[in-house]
C-alpha cells in the first residue's frame, strides 16, 4: 500500500505514525464502505469526538455508495473548514492542531477537516488593569475570541486583521489589527517588515514579541503598550494606532506608543473631564515624584542640609540622629526592601498576600524605625515613591520607573543634587532620542504639537476631540459626523 504512494506527497498511516514518533494518541479509523476504503487519521486528544462521530463517520456511513468518492465528499462534508492539495508539512501540523485526515485508499486522494477542540478560558474580568467604570471584559488566550471581541465592538468593514505567521519551530499566528483608512501606511509597513524579519525559533507571548519589535532594545522604557483591555485596544486603533494579537496570549500589543500614552487610561474617557485631567496630572506628578523624591532626600541629607526649611530641619535631624548608615545606604536598603516586598507579594498566592502586606507594612516598617535603622521620614518618602510607580496605568511603565530610580539615587548619593541633574539630563536626552515604530517617543512635547497636548497631558470635554491625534499620523485625521453618514450609505450599497 505504501509502495503505491511513494511518489505522492500524500501520507499513509504508517508514514504519519513514524513522523509523529509513534505517538500513542494517533488513531487510524479504517472505514470500509462500498468498494471504497477510507482512513480517518486523527489525534485522539485534540479533536472533538462529537464532531468526528456525527459529521464525519456517521455522514460517510449513511451515504449511498455512488456518492462515496473523494470529489463528492470533499464538496459536501458538513464541516466548515477543510483543506485540500496538501503538503506533507501541513498535514502534520494540521493533525497536531486537531484536524482529521481523510485518506481515500483507492483514489489516492486526501483532504483534512477541522474537528479541533481547543482548550479555552472563558472571558473574564480584567485583572492587571482594573477599571472602576467602563467595560470589564478582557482578552483571553484564544486569538479567535480576541478577534471576535474586537469585531463585535468595532463593526467597521475597514477593520483589517492581517495574518502573519512567525516562529520557526513553534509557528504562531500573529494578527495585525488596524483600520485601513485611519492607520498610517508607513507605520504599518514598518511593523509588518519588522515582524517578517524576526528570526525566532519560538515566541511564547505577546510581551516577548513586543520586546523583539522595539526600536531600542537597551532602553529602560517600554516602547509598546501592552494591554488586556479590549476597550483600550479599540480606542487606540480608532486613534490611528496599530494593534497586534498573537495566538495564545491574553495581552495585546499597541504601537506606536509615546511616553504620555503610558499614563492615560480608558477610564480617563469614561470619567468626567475635570476629574480625568486632575487624575492624569496626578499620575505624571506621581511618576516624577517616584523617580526623584528618594534621590532628593539622599542628596539633601548628604550634601545640602542648607536647603531644608528651618522648621523641618529639627524633625528630619531628629529622625536621622540615631541611624548608623549614611543616607545613600539607608535609602538603597529601604528601596530594596520595598522591591522585595512587592516581589514576594506578587509571587505569593493571593490568600497569603494579605499577610505579606501586614508583615511588610507594619512589622518591617515600624520595626526598622524603632530599631533605628532608617528614619521615618525616609519611610514616608519610599512609600510615596512605591505608590507613585504603581499609579501608572500600564504596569510596564511602572516597572521602568522603579528601575530608573536606582541609578538616580546612586547619582544623588555620589554627587548630590548635581548628580540628580546629571540623571535628569541623561533621562531627557534618552527620551528625546527614543522612538517607537520610528515615531518620536516624547511626541506631543517634542516635536511640539500644540493640538495634541489635549490628548495626552489633559483631557477636555469630548466635543473638543474632533480630530485624531496627529502624533500617530493618521491617514484621516478628522472625525466628523458627515463622514459617518457616508459610511452608512456605503453599507447599504
Amino acid at each position, binding site marked *: 500500500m505504501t509502495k503505491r504512494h511513494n511518489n505522492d506527497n500524500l501520507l499513509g498511516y504508517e508514514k504519519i505514525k513514524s513522523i509523529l514518533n509513534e505517538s500513542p494518541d494517533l488513531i487510524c479509523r479504517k472505514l470500509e464502505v462500498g468498494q471504497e476504503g477510507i482512513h480517518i487519521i486523527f489525534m485522539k486528544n485534540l479533536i472533538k469526538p462529537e464532531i468526528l462521530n456525527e459529521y464525519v463517520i456517521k455522514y460517510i456511513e449513511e451515504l449511498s455508495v455512488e456518492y462515496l468518492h473523494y470529489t463528492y465528499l470533499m464538496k459536501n462534508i458538513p464541516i466548515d473548514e477543510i483543506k485540500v492539495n496538501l503538503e506533507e508539512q501541513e498535514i502534520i501540523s494540521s493533525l497536531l492542531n486537531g484536524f482529521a485526515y481523510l485518506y481515500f485508499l483507492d483514489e489516492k486522494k486526501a483532504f483534512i477537516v477541522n474537528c479541533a477542540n481547543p482548550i479555552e478560558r472563558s472571558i473574564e474580568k480584567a485583572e492587571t488593569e482594573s477599571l472602576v467604570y467602563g467595560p470589564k471584559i478582557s482578552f483571553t488566550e484564544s486569538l479567535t475570541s480576541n478577534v471576535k471581541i474586537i469585531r463585535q465592538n468595532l463593526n467597521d468593514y475597514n477593520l483589517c486583521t492581517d495574518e502573519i505567521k512567525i516562529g520557526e519551530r513553534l509557528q504562531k499566528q500573529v494578527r495585525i489589527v488596524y483600520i485601513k483608512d485611519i492607520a498610517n501606511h508607513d507605520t504599518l509597513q514598518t511593523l509588518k517588515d519588522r515582524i517578517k524579519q524576526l528570526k525566532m525559533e519560538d515566541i511564547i507571548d505577546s510581551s516577548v514579541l513586543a520586546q523583539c519589535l522595539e526600536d531600542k532594545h537597551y532602553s529602560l522604557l517600554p516602547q509598546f503598550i501592552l494591554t488586556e483591555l479590549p476597550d483600550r485596544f479599540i480606542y487606540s486603533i480608532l486613534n490611528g494606532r496599530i494593534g497586534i494579537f498573537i495566538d495564545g496570549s491574553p495581552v495585546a500589543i499597541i504601537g506606536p506608543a509615546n511616553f504620555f500614552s503610558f499614563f492615560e487610561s480608558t477610564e480617563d474617557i469614561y470619567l468626567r473631564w475635570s476629574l480625568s485631567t486632575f487624575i492624569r496630572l496626578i499620575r505624571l506628578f506621581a511618576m516624577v515624584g517616584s523617580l526623584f523624591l528618594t534621590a532628593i532626600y539622599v542628596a539633601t*541629607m548628604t550634601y545640602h*542640609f*542648607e536647603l531644608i526649611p*528651618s*522648621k523641618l530641619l529639627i524633625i528630619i*535631624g531628629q529622625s*536621622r*540622629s540615631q541611624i548608623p548608615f549614611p*543616607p545613600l545606604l539607608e535609602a538603597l536598603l529601604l528601596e530594596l526592601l520595598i522591591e522585595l516586598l512587592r516581589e514576594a507579594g506578587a509571587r505569593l498566592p493571593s490568600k497569603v498576600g494579605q499577610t505579606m502586606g501586614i508583615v511588610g507594612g507594619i512589622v518591617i516598617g515600624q520595626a526598622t524605625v524603632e530599631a533605628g535603622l532608617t528614619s521615618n521620614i525616609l519611610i514616608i518618602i519610599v512609600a510615596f515613591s512605591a505608590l507613585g510607580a504603581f499609579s501608572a496605568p500600564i504596569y510596564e511603565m511602572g516597572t521602568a520607573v522603579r528601575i530608573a530610580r536606582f541609578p538616580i539615587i546612586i547619582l544623588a548619593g555620589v554627587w548630590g543634587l*548635581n548628580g540628580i541633574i546629571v540623571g535628569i539630563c541623561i533621562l531627557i536626552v534618552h527620551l528625546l532620542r527614543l522612538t517607537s515604530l520610528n515615531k518620536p517617543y516624547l511626541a506631543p512635547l517634542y516635536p511640539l504639537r500644540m493640538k495634541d497636548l489635549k490628548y495626552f497631558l489633559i483631557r477636555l470635554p469630548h466635543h473638543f476631540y474632533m480630530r485624531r491625534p496627529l502624533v500617530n499620523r493618521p491617514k484621516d485625521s478628522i472625525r466628523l459626523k458627515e463622514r459617518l453618514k457616508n459610511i452608512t450609505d456605503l453599507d447599504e450599497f
Partner: protein
Amino acid sequence: MKKIVILLCSLLCTACMAPEKIIEMQGISTIIGFDFLDDNTFKGTISLLQFDRKEENTSVTLSAEGTTSKQIRQKLEEQTSHDITSGQLRTILFNKNMAATVGISSFLDTMQRDSSISSLIFLAITDNAEETINNTNYEEYPEMGSYIYQLLDKHEKKEMLVNSNLHDFITTLYEIGIDPTLPIINNANGVAPSIDGVALFKEDKIVGSISLINTLYIKLFTNNKAFLGDITVEIATEELEKRGMAELNLSKSDSYKITLHPIKYKGNIEIKNPEFVHLNATISVSTLEFQPSTSVKNKDSLKKMEQLIGEALNKEFRYILEELKNLNTDPIGIGRKIRSIRKYSHLTEGDLRQNYSALKIKPNIQVEIKRTGLVD
C-alpha cells in the same frame, strides 16, 4: 557608552564633587552673637541644633573668645564633636557696646565672603549677645535661633522694620549719602527677647536709636512698598475747638486720639538746593479708632481733621529730623538723593556729612482720610 564614560570622567577627574555634609554630623548654627571684651578680644556665642531626642533642649549654646570671628569659630570647633556649619545661620547679633565703639563692618565683611552664609540673614543689636542667646524663653519655638529669626521675619514681613538683612546693611553702609539701621533686641530676665526700637548708625557705629513706630517716617521715604503700620496721633482738644469743630461734641478730656490705618502713601525728597530740602509725603488713611469716640460725617470737618493730623505728624517728624541731624546720621538717604542730581554728584561722603548738620529740612506730610467707619 563612550559618551557616558567621558561624562563620568569629566566630573570625577575634575573633582566636581561637593564635600560630604551628612546632616546629623553637622553642628548646625542658627544664630551667632558677638560680644566685646576688652583688649580687642571678642566673645562669640553660637546656638547649635542638637538632634538627640533624649535631650530636653533641641539646641546647645557654646561660647569662645578670640580676636577674629574665624578664630572664635576655630575655638568653638574645639568644644564640639560636630562640624560647625553656617548653612542654616539666620541671625547675627552684635553687642550694642561693641557696635558703638569698634564698629561691625569688619565682621560683616568676612560673613559676606562666606558662600554658605546667605546674604539675606538678619542682623540685630542687643545689649549682651551671650545672654540673649542663652535666654531659655522662646515661646513655642524649638530654640533661640529660630525664635529670633521668626521675630525679625514677622516684623520685616509686616514691614514694621526697615530692612535689616546683611545685604541691605552692606548696601546702605557702602552707599554714599545713606546710613544703615538695625533692629535692637531687648533681652530681659524671664521673658522672651523682644524688639525694642531701631538703632541708627553713622557708618558702622551706633549713634542713637528711635522707636519702632517712629520708623514710619524713614519708611515713608525709603521704601514705597512698605507697610507703615497704624499711626496714632494725639491732638489737643483746644486745637480742635479753635478750628471750630464744635459739632464733634468733645468731652473734657484734654487730648483727642485717633488711630489711622495707612492705605497707600507716596514719599518724595524734593531738593530745592543742597542746603534746603523738602520732604513731601501724602498718606491716604482710613480711620480706625477715635478716643473718645466721635463720628466725623461732615466733609468740612474731615478736611480740618486731615489738616490737624498732618500738622501733628509734621511736628513729630520735625523733632525726629532735628535729632537725626544732631546725631549726624542720615537713614532717610537725603544725601543720596542730593548726590543723585547731576550737578551735585561730585559731593563726597565728607561733604555730605558736613552739609547734613547744617541742612534745612522742611517736612511736609499730608494726610487724606479716604474711608471712615471701616469694618476690618
